[in-house]
């Protein structure tokens, strides 16, 4: 197995920038050390793209065309850019659902289930309020309920890990499948709205009760909340006692126990925060896009979010740009299908390749002396 701790990135922060001595060239040294975190991922991205380009050439397609279409379909026009932003919004939130537990040393992949149940719960709680309570308080309540339900669901996995040692990766995945079954059961049965017999859903919210778009654009507010949550959770994890305690636990579980940290509560709290983020994503899917809860909620955002979080090295501040990159890739998928005649699985292959190469590049950290501050370089 690897000799690295469970969640890469967790302990580094502890010995990183905070620990350098104050000196004249301090800023330059820090810049040098931190640039490693940007250069190596970019290098990995370039290598992955090159490998994919070779793959394309082997099947007779042009890599240049591919890049051009990714640009055009994902970022090149106002329409494409908004398309990308719209698709990135749920990815930001589901990525947070992986990043936060990663900081405490858990690998949880239950975002999809929390998204589905959170979205479902918010749609259900709205039913008695439609037409009686004004939209804004309704939406706020819906968001809160979505987050509570999502948080509870992933919290179960965290609790099981602490109390019974059940592996959280697998339990969170199992809970995802169970959560989707629960949603389907109710949406097709007791809570089914009968006005649309061909697509089992809960009662539609109606335009008045839906989250609108940011004025001047066609992107809904979800992305703003997602980005804000990234900043907020970054501050929580790096600048508060809670965050510090969580990272210590993630770095060395036994030491944290020895220190008397409330490890159980920390684990459950981080899991719950993760689930709440995914639940919020579900709320936005219902309130900003679909207008009701149905099987389309399980669209795979949770799983793509896992990728985004790993690529952002579980750093909440890095999640928005990575999510946008991914959103752009997915957004351009349609254009690539139509213009290059490639199947939709192409984007999956590229995503997988990027992921694999980026994870392999983890091994390059600390190997290049160019990133080390001058004193260390001489020693090393």
């Amino acid at each position, binding site marked *: 197995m690897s000799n690295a701790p469970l969640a890469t990135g967790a302990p580094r922060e502890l010995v990183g920038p905070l620990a350098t001595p104050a000196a004249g060239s301090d800023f330059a040294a820090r810049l040098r050390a931190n640039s490693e975190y940007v250069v190596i991922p970019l290098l990995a991205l370039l290598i992955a793209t090159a490998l994919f380009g070779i793959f394309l050439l082997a099947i007779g397609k042009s890599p240049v065309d591919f890049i051009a279409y990714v640009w055009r379909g994902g970022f090149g026009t106002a329409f494409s850019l908004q398309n990308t932003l719209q698709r990135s919004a749920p990815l930001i939130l589901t990525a947070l659902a992986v990043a936060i537990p990663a900081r405490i040393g858990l690998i949880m992949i239950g975002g999809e289930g929390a998204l589905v149940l959170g979205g479902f719960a918010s749609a259900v709680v709205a039913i008695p309020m439609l037409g009686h309570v004004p939209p804004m308080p309704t939406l706020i309540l819906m968001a809160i309920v979505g987050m509570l339900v999502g948080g509870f669901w992933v919290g179960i996995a965290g609790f099981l890990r602490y109390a019974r040692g059940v592996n959280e990766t697998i339990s969170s995945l199992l809970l995802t499948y169970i959560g989707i079954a629960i949603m389907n059961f109710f949406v*097709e049965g007791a809570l089914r709205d009968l006005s649309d017999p061909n*697509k089992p859903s809960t009662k*539609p919210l109606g335009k008045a009760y839906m989250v609108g778009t940011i004025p001047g654009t066609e992107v809904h507010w979800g992305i703003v909340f997602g980005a804000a949550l990234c900043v907020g959770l970054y501050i929580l994890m790096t600048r508060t006692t809670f965050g510090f305690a969580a990272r210590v636990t993630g770095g060395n579980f036994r030491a944290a126990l020895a220190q008397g940290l409330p490890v159980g509560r920390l684990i459950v709290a981080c899991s719950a925060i993760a689930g709440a983020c995914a639940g919020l994503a579900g709320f936005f899917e219902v309130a900003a896009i679909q*207008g009701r809860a149905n099987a389309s909620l399980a*669209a795979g955002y949770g799983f793509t979010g896992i990728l985004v979080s790993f690529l952002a090295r579980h750093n909440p501040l890095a999640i928005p740009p990575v999510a946008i990159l991914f959103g752009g890739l997915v957004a351009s998928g349609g254009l690539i299908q*139509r213009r290059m005649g490639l199947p939709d699985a192409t984007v999956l292959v590229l995503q997988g390749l990027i992921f694999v190469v980026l994870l392999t590049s983890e091994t390059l950290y600390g190997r290049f002396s160019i990133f080390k501050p001058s004193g260390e370089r001489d020693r090393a």
Partner: protein
Amino acid sequence: MTASELTRRNLLKSAALGAAAATLDLGAISRALAAKDLTVGVVYVGARDDFGWNQAHAVAIKSLKGVPGVKVVEEENVPETDAVSKSMESMINLDGAGLILATSFGYYKPFVLDLARKYPDVEFRHAAPLWNKATDPKNAGSYFGYLNQAHYVDGVAAGLCTKTNKIGFVAAKPIASVLSNINSVLLGARSVNPKATVRVIFTGDWSMPVREAESANALVDAGCDVITCHVDGPKVVIETAEKRGVMSCGHNASQAPLAPKGFITGAEYKWITIYKGYADDLAEGKPLPNFLAGGYEADYVQNTPFGAAATEPAKKAALAAIAGLKAKKPIYVGPLKDNKTGKVVIDKTYDNLDPYLDKMDYLLEGVIGSTT
């Protein structure tokens, strides 16, 4: 058409004639379109070669591609989320599509509707009977084939072929069109064999090969000797039935090659009728009809040519049923009760296209199975 005419050879001959006739039309269309090229954007929810729902559309679209002056852009595996909005918009903005064909139920509300309001010059047509004259924009519209009529014919044939009087149905989700197919199989079977019953198993999703295979096996274990289905890709169900040595009826597209011994007939869409109609209208500059729905009487559905397991009486009865449906003979003739509470759900005779039937959320008495 009489029984002797519907043999494969004759079918091929009439197809050839039809193709010839179509080429004559093509000539006219191409001249008309020379002035204005039309790009048609098609969105599929699954893979085009799934031996089922999407393939039925893709095969019909293929013939559109042959029309000079018509360019077709297709996108597959587009989920029923805002991804389809973006795909359609991309086709409009980047490919210049003038007609969008959205081929999955969940695309309509709100995606097709919102986009139709945003792009009033583009025509949107959706494959489900959802267009509402009062509330929906004029450039949107629906088209649908009432496949349950073809399933009724399946039921008629199955009712005379079955020896155990148990017909098995593997269904995906309990939505109105699926339930109508199940009920129509029952009614068709009972019209020739009053002892026939239908046993249904719901898999819970449109495409779950392992569960579909398990369900088919379970139905055969429970005594069914004819298996049919409503799932996106019937390939697994038909193959499993054939492996077990029972008979089968197909769905969506022709699965006859998969069951050389056990195939009876199948319920297929004939989307080409509608798509060619749209192409013709566009070529002549006529406005596209907003709501096209029909069954046999409009030539929107068809039955797969009979397979090896279809007996002579079954074939005769099936053809008679087809003739009746073409003459608009109703399937749902009340009073009929549901199988859960015994309450009367079909009180009188309903015309085959009556909107009351689109709201079906029950299984008729005679069907063993539950919707939740």
